[in-house]
């Protein structure tokens, strides 16, 4: 029980000081888990990161579950996940409650109108980053185009498009690999 609490507190602390999640958490994990608690090696954490990116869900949460589970089984994994989620619940609830009282305030409305432009640019920036990493050939461009149009022009759920593209990936690679083998 004490160790579960320790896992929870550790991840709670780390989540409170990480802005943005994902890879932003890596140096913080290293300091807390590798240097501080000496729970595991840095290589182990990087492995967990690599696998977590390939799994559904929020990357930082997946990493926390991996680490927690290695320490204390499934209960440890749950403690890690709850630790990550804890600060979000407090901070976001507080901000959302605050903003719902001020959403008609002209200052707040103008600020968010400016921020919306910024968010648009941030999203475009991350699309470019993802494009460079993920769209590597003509097939990739075709998948991108089909999904883009599918999402824009039809009411299809993103789930359908994700499942279809995963199946497409398997089928097309199997066919490509089958010829050379």
């Amino acid at each position: 029980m004490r160790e579960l609490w320790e896992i929870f507190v550790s991840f709670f602390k780390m989540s409170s000081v990480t802005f943005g999640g994902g890879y932003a958490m890596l140096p913080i994990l290293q300091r807390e888990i590798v240097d501080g608690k000496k729970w595991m090696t840095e290589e182990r954490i990087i492995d967990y990161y690599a696998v977590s990116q390939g799994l559904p869900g929020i990357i930082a949460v997946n990493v926390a579950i991996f680490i927690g589970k290695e320490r204390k089984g499934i209960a440890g994994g749950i403690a890690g996940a709850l630790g990550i989620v804890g600060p979000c619940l407090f901070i976001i609830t507080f901000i959302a409650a605050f903003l719902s009282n001020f959403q008609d305030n002209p200052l707040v409305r103008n600020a968010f109108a400016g921020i919306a432009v910024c968010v648009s640019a941030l999203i475009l920036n991350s699309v470019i980053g993802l494009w460079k990493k993920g769209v590597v050939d003509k097939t990739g461009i075709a998948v991108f185009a089909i999904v883009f149009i599918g999402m824009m022009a039809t009411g299809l759920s993103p789930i359908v498009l994700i499942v279809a593209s995963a199946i497409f990936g398997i089928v097309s690679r199997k066919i490509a690999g089958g010829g050379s083998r």
Partner: protein
Amino acid sequence: MIFAKLFYEFLKIGLFTIGGGMATIPFLQDLSESTGWFSIAFIADMVAISESTPGPIGINMATYVGYNVAGILGGIIATLGLVIPSIIIVSVVSGYLERFRNSPLVEYVFYGLRPAVTGLIAAAGVEIVRIAVLDNELYKATNNLRDLLDWRKALYFVIIFYLIRRFKRHPVAYIGLSAIIGIAFGFAN
């Protein structure tokens, strides 16, 4: 019941979101269209708040949506819904870590998935750009195409995009700057 629906919707998002925080945006857009719980414009606010506060973006967005739909308990339930698939999936995969890492099947899946996720986020981004940069209301009132583009916002979009690419600072810096610009130039009017 609203709590059950909230839990179910975020369980689905937790099960199918691959590729980090921004990848939840297309799902939130879909959720906005299918439930009417919040507007597309609200998603941009949410992204900004999630980027500017501690904690993973996806979790922050779940808490934010949940709170706005059904109060404090709503925030907790949406967040738990998002996390529960991870607990199950990671628990299963951790037993086969090496096999998962070296599996060609996983690699094949991602061959299709990476461009698809990019396309999904791009499509959701177009919607958000449309609301953030274009003046739909004025266009509807006048039906004049020249009124559709809010040139101040379009110009600022180009500037802030350049700054993001050029300086690669943390998003919070750009969000803070944009709040000041929005107030200084009365962007909401």
